[in-house]
């Protein structure tokens, strides 16, 4: 019997998750999407492909990642909770993004293409793509909003060290949304030689399915690890949601485990009630953006709205179509976590566990804390996807917490400018 709200067999043959997903792209891209869909389907049945991917994940990316019990962080939540962290921050390149990129790099090779392009917000996907391109010997171009190149300058330098060309995008909002537009434009013009390695479970079919399939290992490992450790399934699995790839990666294996709550934490920015946020599943409406139908932040004319979040990786007006489906089915719940709550959780995690997570990831820690405290019963066990490490965010965090004075910052930047 199918459990209500569970349908791991989705999407259907035309790429739909109920009313969501599909393909809303220029005709010029259809041939490439068909080619990719076919290559992915063949690869999933090809033992040699799967063995090569498995070898890369094990010997290059460092999988399986550990499941770490966070006892002191759990104490900070209270209520007798047990908290386990799925340590994607320990994967090579410092986030879960590497899982997807290694899979797509193998597909790129299989399709005979020699150039990859990517969009990036926080830079984690850009770094992962640049890494895989270096490993496979591909040319690599990464599109990044100009505002994000400023707030994530460290990752820009990392990508360039890895040999990628980073193009700052100055159109529109100058963030992830417009970086994605530019990547699509590049792809339309160069599709015969270039693979667009989309970084999340977004975009036209087959991307939401394909990226999910490559990220699904997070939940597969976590489920086996928690059963091994506690002998039981957790009460909840929690992850941050921008486009939603780390969340879908964790959730997917648990969809048919009816007792496990799937909790997605969107960027609540200044507070969902202020309108200044990036929480389409919490406060948006269905529409079409970047090739798929999904929840979206849009106005009455269907124009995409500007978003607000301290986190460059979550600062995006759309979300993956499978999340929209899980939301409507009632199988997953989504909540907006404010900048302030996320930053407080980041500090708590650092001080209780010695783990400095990415600001994106911190939204999941704040959301898990709120979820545990909202339950009637004590003693809940939750798995939080610790999706990325926070080295890239030290500058932003230092400013937020006032750990360096404005004068220090100005002095340092003046010195840098003088040195240049």
């Amino acid at each position, binding site marked *: 019997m199918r459990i209500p709200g569970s349908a791991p067999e989705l999407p259907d043959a035309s790429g739909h998750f109920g009313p969501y997903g599909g393909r*809303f792209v*220029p005709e*010029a891209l259809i041939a490439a999407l068909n080619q990719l869909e076919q290559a992915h389907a063949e690869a999933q049945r090809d033992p040699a492909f799967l063995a090569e991917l498995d070898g890369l994940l094990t010997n290059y990316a460092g999988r399986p990642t550990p499941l770490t019990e966070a006892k002191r962080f759990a104490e900070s939540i209270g209520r007798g909770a047990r908290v386990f962290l799925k340590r994607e921050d320990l994967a090579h390149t410092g986030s879960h993004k590497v899982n997807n990129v290694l899979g797509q790099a193998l597909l790129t090779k299989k399709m005979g293409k020699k150039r990859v392009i990517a969009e990036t917000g926080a830079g984690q996907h850009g770094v992962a793509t640049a890494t895989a391109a270096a490993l496979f010997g591909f040319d690599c171009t990464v599109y990044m909003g100009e505002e994000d190149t400023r707030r994530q300058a460290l990752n820009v330098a990392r990508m360039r060290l890895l040999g990628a060309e980073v193009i700052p995008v100055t159109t529109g909002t100058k963030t992830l949304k417009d970086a994605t*537009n530019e990547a*699509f*434009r590049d792809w339309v013009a160069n599709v015969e030689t270039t693979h667009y390695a989309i970084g999340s479970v977004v975009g036209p079919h087959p991307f939401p399915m394909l990226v999910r399939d490559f990220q699904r290992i997070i939940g597969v490992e976590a489920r086996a690890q928690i059963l091994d450790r506690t002998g039981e399934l957790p009460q909840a699995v929690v992850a941050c949601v921008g486009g939603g790839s780390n969340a879908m990666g964790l959730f997917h294996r648990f969809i048919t485990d009816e007792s496990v709550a799937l909790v997605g934490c969107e960027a609540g920015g200044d507070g969902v009630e202020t309108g200044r946020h990036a929480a389409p599943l919490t406060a948006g409406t269905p529409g079409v*953006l*970047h090739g798929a139908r999904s929840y979206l932040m849009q106005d009455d*004319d*269907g124009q995409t709205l500007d978003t607000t979040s301290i986190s460059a990786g979550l600062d995006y007006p759309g979300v993956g179509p499978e999340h929209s489906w899980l939301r409507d089915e009632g199988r997953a719940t989504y909540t907006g976590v404010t900048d302030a709550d996320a930053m407080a959780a980041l500090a708590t995690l650092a001080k209780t566990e010695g783990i400095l997570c990415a600001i994106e990831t911190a939204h999941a820690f704040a959301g898990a804390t709120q979820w545990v405290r909202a339950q009637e019963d004590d003693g809940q066990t939750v798995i939080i996807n610790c999706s990325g490490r926070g080295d890239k965010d030290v500058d932003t965090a230092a400013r937020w917490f006032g750990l360096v004075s404005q004068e220090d910052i100005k002095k340092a930047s003046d010195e840098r400018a003088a040195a240049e």
Partner: protein
Amino acid sequence: MTRLDDLFATCRAENRAALIGYLPVGFPSYEESVAAMIAMVEGGVDAVEVGVPYTDPGMDGPLIQVAVDQALRKGIRVSQVFDAVEAVSAHAPTVVMGYWNPIEKLTPAVFAQKLKAAGGSGAITPDLIPEEAEPWLEAAREHDLDPVFLVAPSSTDDRIAAVGRTNRGFIYVASTMGVTGTRATVGNRAEELVRRTRELTDLPLCVGLGVSNGEQAAEVAAYADGVIVGSAFVQALQDEGVDAVRRLAQDLAAGVRRRA
């Protein structure tokens, strides 16, 4: 028969290609955009492609994106697109060029009803493919509007044939793999694609992407039923205003009559 069918019949009788000109509503202002569209017709454009401003125009190059961004920042609304269609349709047939989300948001039925009421003949939908278009096709049928999908150099024969069955009015033939913008040459992939498409449909074939002057228009008119020009009009309007739009239309109109 829509006005577009009449237009292509007339052009065939005159042994020339049709000239279709694009401008987005609201750039540089609502009034100037409508004045420029009318000037385009006075200069010799046969049909006007009225652009619906959209925040994320994935098939447009930087020139049109910046123009549309400016229109949106000044507060242009989708409702004003219908006002523009009404004003311009008094002078020439119009089709809107609209990305899908604003149409879906208004609902296909309401969009079609308003477009028809304003005197529009149809809609080009650059990010909608026939497989996703059932609600739009139903609304277009009900209001006797021409749905116009695109074919691209990468389209398979099966897909071209499907577009041939779905479209009415004409087929938008994308000359190159790429986004809108002026190009030094239109390239020979357009001619090859027109030849391939011609074998699979009887609909008029209009080539867009990259045409910016009379010489290129003549070159394309030699093998196509229509020539679509967008970015060059936006550039002319931006640099020199409405009179430059009229002059460009005159140059292009002479081109489609040369069939070089």
